[in-house]
């Protein structure tokens, strides 16, 4: 708590002296009388009672678990607990730094009689992550405004926004070589190769696949079929180094696009029975081992939304390129494919992708194109990015160049057509 003089009335007495002097010099009582004005307001500034810090704030939030883009109403209520009027009470609510106010104002100035309340509300737009409200600033001034109290009050409120994984029909993985497939099948076989159908026995079907229960009941031989496709293990690697936080003209950072796309790809792959994990490629490390099922899906959504490695704000920590890549490789299961999400704003992701490919992980790069505008800088950035895309393609890595203004599904369809050729 701080009490300070605002000094807004400084110099008002000079007015009296000016009028007094002019009055005496000119022997004009009417002029002399004007000296009263300065004296009166100076006295008002001095004598008006100073403010008392008796205001209390409470904050309520409509929904502390919103989905992305929801407008969340915040109401702040002020109460004067003292027994004197608070003539000038100014409140600035501590809106979490990542959230934008979309309606109303998080600020209020009012006068509060003893025991009365005042409230104000505003709306913020939820983005992913955990958002803690900052302390509320309360400034109480006396009626003349000569003295003010400043106080910061912390009311613990947080908004936690975990967006649902947006759906995507399909995401084509790279064809696995035979040796890998073998491994993948054993890996999945115990947990559950999906049941597909039963059909009439045909000579040559393996004996283990005959439905013997049914044979015993009816005497007919039927064969159980499993889903032909073999599940893959995929790790979604999101570039969250500082250069990846480049934003388009609308201010949406490429990491946001990467995380959204990552969620969509995860949702497509999980739906087809693949095991999906996520990792960050940046100074802040986040890792979720590949897994399956609804619980894993929820954990994956939370990881993408809340983990430090995918934070909506750029990291402050220093990035060690070699170390980060080694850390990723240490965690990757031997047969895992990698889908790397990066705006390719510098050369590092292309190096990382080729290094991973060289170590036997099949890599697909999904790159949101956030280069906007027609300035010289933008054109150079675009040329450099095109060059990086070419480098990757020459190295045999699949690249999905995606304009975030279009749905990811459209980019996937286009790219799949090209990859088939």
């Amino acid at each position, binding site marked *: 708590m701080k009490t300070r003089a605002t000094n807004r009335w400084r110099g008002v007495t000079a007015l009296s002296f000016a009028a007094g002097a002019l009055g005496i010099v000119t022997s004009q*009582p009417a*002029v002399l*009388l004007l000296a009263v004005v300065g004296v009166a307001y100076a006295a008002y500034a001095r004598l008006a009672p100073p403010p008392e810090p008796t205001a209390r704030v409470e904050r309520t939030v409509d929904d502390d678990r919103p989905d992305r883009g929801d407008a969340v109403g915040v109401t702040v209520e002020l109460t004067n607990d003292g027994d004197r009027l608070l003539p000038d009470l100014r409140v600035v609510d501590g809106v979490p730094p990542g959230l934008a106010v979309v309606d109303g104002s998080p600020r*209020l*100035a009012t006068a509060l009689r003893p025991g009365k309340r005042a409230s104000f509300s505003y709306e913020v737009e939820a983005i992913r992550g955990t958002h803690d409200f900052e302390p509320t600033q309360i400034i109480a001034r006396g009626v003349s405004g000569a003295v003010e109290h400043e106080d910061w009050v912390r009311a613990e409120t947080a908004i936690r926004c975990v967006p649902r994984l947006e759906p995507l029909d399909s995401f084509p993985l790279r064809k696995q070589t035979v040796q890998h497939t073998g491994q993948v099948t054993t890996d999945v076989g115990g947990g559950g190769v999906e049941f597909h159908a039963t059909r009439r026995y045909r000579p040559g079907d393996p004996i283990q696949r005959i439905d013997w229960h049914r044979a015993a009941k009816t005497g007919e031989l039927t064969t159980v079929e499993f889903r032909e496709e073999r599940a893959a293990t995929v790790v979604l690697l999101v570039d969250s180094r500082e250069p990846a936080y480049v934003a388009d003209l609308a201010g949406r950072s490429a990491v946001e696009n990467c995380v959204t796309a990552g969620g969509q790809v995860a949702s497509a792959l999980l739906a087809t029975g693949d095991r999906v994990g996520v990792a960050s490629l940046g100074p802040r490390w986040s890792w979720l081992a590949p897994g399956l099922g609804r619980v894993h899906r929820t954990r994956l959504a939370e990881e993408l939304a809340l983990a430090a490695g995918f934070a909506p704000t750029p990291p402050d920590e220093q990035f060690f390129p070699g170390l980060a890549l080694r850390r990723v490789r240490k965690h990757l299961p031997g047969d895992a494919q990698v889908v790397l999400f990066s705006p390719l704003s510098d050369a590092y992701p292309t190096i990382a992708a080729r290094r991973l490919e060289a170590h036997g992980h099949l890599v697909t790069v999904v790159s949101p194109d956030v280069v906007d505008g027609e300035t010289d800088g933008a054109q150079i950035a675009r040329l450099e990015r095109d060059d990086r895309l070419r480098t990757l393609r020459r190295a045999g890595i699949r690249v999905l160049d995606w304009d975030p203004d279009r749905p990811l599904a459209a980019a996937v369809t286009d790219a799949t057509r090209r990859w088939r050729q």
Partner: protein
Amino acid sequence: MSTVDRAPARASSVVAVGAGVVSLAALAVGGAFALVPGVLGLVLVVLAVVGGSRAWLTTGSGFLLLGALFAALASGTALLPLLGAVAAMVGWDVGENGIGLGEQLGRAARTRHAEFTHASASVLVGLVTVVVGYAVFLTSSGGQPLSALVLLLVGAVVLLVALRA
């Protein structure tokens, strides 16, 4: 985050300009001699509350006060110049408060209550000043007006020094 409009609070700006107009009307009693700085002052006050500039507001109010002094000098009457000076002070006080509210809270915030409380207090102080000051002027002008008023001024200065301690 979208930028906050930091323009001065609306109600205060209106009151400040209104007070400036009252001030100018009052010091019209002094004729052109007083009206020249008065009009200049009012224009500056209007520009100040539009642009949110404290320096212009203070300068504008200063010109209005100068106009009030000239009006008193030229006309020799007390009431209207006193009213003009008080209105200039009210305009400055309310206008400055409005600029401060705009800077601190922005125009989108609800600030009416605080503004009206501040403005009413300022107007009240002004009215008391006019009534008391004019009453003293009237009573003292019977005997030896100037010396009595000089004494009044000395008393006021002593009071100020005491308050400052």
